[in-house]
């Protein structure tokens, strides 16, 4: 327990250092996430809207999940060299499949009766997408964003071994900071990840239409791919 007391003392004594590393951590994560979102959401939404490319859109996340983060960052370091941009590229590669698959599944799985009704009301394809499919798909798209945010913030900790700065700098440098420093930084990272999770959980709730919220409470959510899509598209 004394170790944890020392850890909190370390946090109190080194607020400036930890704060600046936190900002580096957030800058790295934010940059990688921004690129991944800009690339993956339009692609996933478009594919889902035309119901094409399900094999690719779903399998890219299976392969993406299989990429061990430390291995990917290391290989990136070996091939591209160390530095902020290279780690950012590795993080983007890790975040992209999560966001893409969720965006695809979300739009592809929108209740076809609702889409039919919208068409019957004379909406064009573009209007169906913007006024019907996107609002209904938003919670699930957002779930992907939330997963990616937490994943990238966690993985950015490893960036320290690849020459980019993050809170991991302290965690992997036990020689300099000793156990209290390592624990203190570990606590900071854990709190950062939990705050991000809570923030995005609240945001996800905020973008969920009330009717869908109730539905979600009734059915337990499952992680994983084919059964999820199948059940969502199946007519009653």
């Amino acid at each position, binding site marked *: *327990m004394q*170790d*944890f007391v020392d850890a909190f003392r370390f946090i109190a004594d080194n607020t400036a250092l930890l704060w600046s590393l936190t900002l580096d951590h957030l800058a790295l994560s934010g940059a990688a996430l921004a690129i991944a979102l800009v690339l993956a959401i339009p692609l996933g939404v478009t594919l889902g809207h035309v119901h094409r490319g399900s094999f690719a859109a779903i399998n890219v996340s*299976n*392969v993406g*999940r*299989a*990429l*061990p*983060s*430390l*291995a*990917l960052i*290391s*290989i990136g*370091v*070996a*091939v591209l060299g160390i530095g902020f941009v290279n780690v950012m590229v590795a993080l983007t590669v890790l975040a992209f499949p999560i966001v893409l698959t969720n965006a695809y599944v979300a739009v592809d799985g929108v209740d076809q009766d609702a889409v039919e009704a919208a068409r019957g009301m004379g909406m064009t394809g573009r209007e169906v997408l913007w006024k019907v499919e996107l609002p209904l798909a938003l919670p699930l798209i957002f779930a992907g964003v939330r997963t990616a945010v*937490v994943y990238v*913030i*966690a*993985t950015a*900790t*490893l960036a320290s*071994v*690849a020459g980019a700065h993050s809170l*991991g700098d302290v*965690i*992997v440098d036990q020689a300099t900071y000793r*156990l209290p420093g*390592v*624990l203190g*930084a*570990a*606590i900071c*990272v*854990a709190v950062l*990840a*939990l705050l991000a*999770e809570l923030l995005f959980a609240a945001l996800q709730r905020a973008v969920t239409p009330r009717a869908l919220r109730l539905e979600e409470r009734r*059915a*337990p*959510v*499952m*992680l*994983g*791919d*084919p*059964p999820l899509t199948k*059940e969502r598209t199946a007519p009653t």
Partner: protein
Amino acid sequence: MIPLAAAQPVIPDFGRGSSCVRENGTFCWDWVSAHWGDTLRPALVQHVALTLIALAAGFAIAFALALAAHRRGRLTTPVVLVTGLLYTIPSLALFQLLVPFTGLSRTTAEIALVSYTLLILFRNTLAGLAGVPEEVRDAARGMGLTRRQLLWRVELPLALPAIVAGLRIATVTVISLATVAVFVVNQGLGAPIYAGLQQTFKTELIAAGALCVALALAADGLLVLMQRALTPWTRVARSR
């Protein structure tokens, strides 16, 4: 500094290896074949062991919790909250936070790895059980099955695809995170990856990283095959 530098040459076997190793090419096959037996294979075996132990323990805990929550719905929320909290803590941080309790040991690594499987396995098992159609349950009860028989003969087989989907995610996650365990215990594929990061010689890093990716893909493929073998009826349903 000098004895340290002499003890750990930047490039292994400097001057004795092939031209590729001496010139530090991007990837040297002859280094891999020369060091397969003393570096890569032991690391791979340790990695598989770390993964299997974590999965077995994680599955046992999550499965028991899911069965309990399936019977008593009130348990679901607290279990999801606690396992979700564990799942959110970044791996590097969690490994270190356990060090004061279990030291720099394999136990530390396993506890952290197990804690990452719980949320996935629990949620998927429970969702699989909850997804069993009510008519099927009624039919089974009508045939005179006891509660236990209903669970093991009807509900669990029907939940199998969801359970395996969870196992696939958990397996790949553990294989990935086990590389990070190198910061608390010098075992698994993280060891050559970390060693590779400390030197300018690239082959060790790439070889170990690629092995890790290959292991994850192979394990994922194996679980898909296992699910197909265990649930022949899903293929019939799909081909319709």
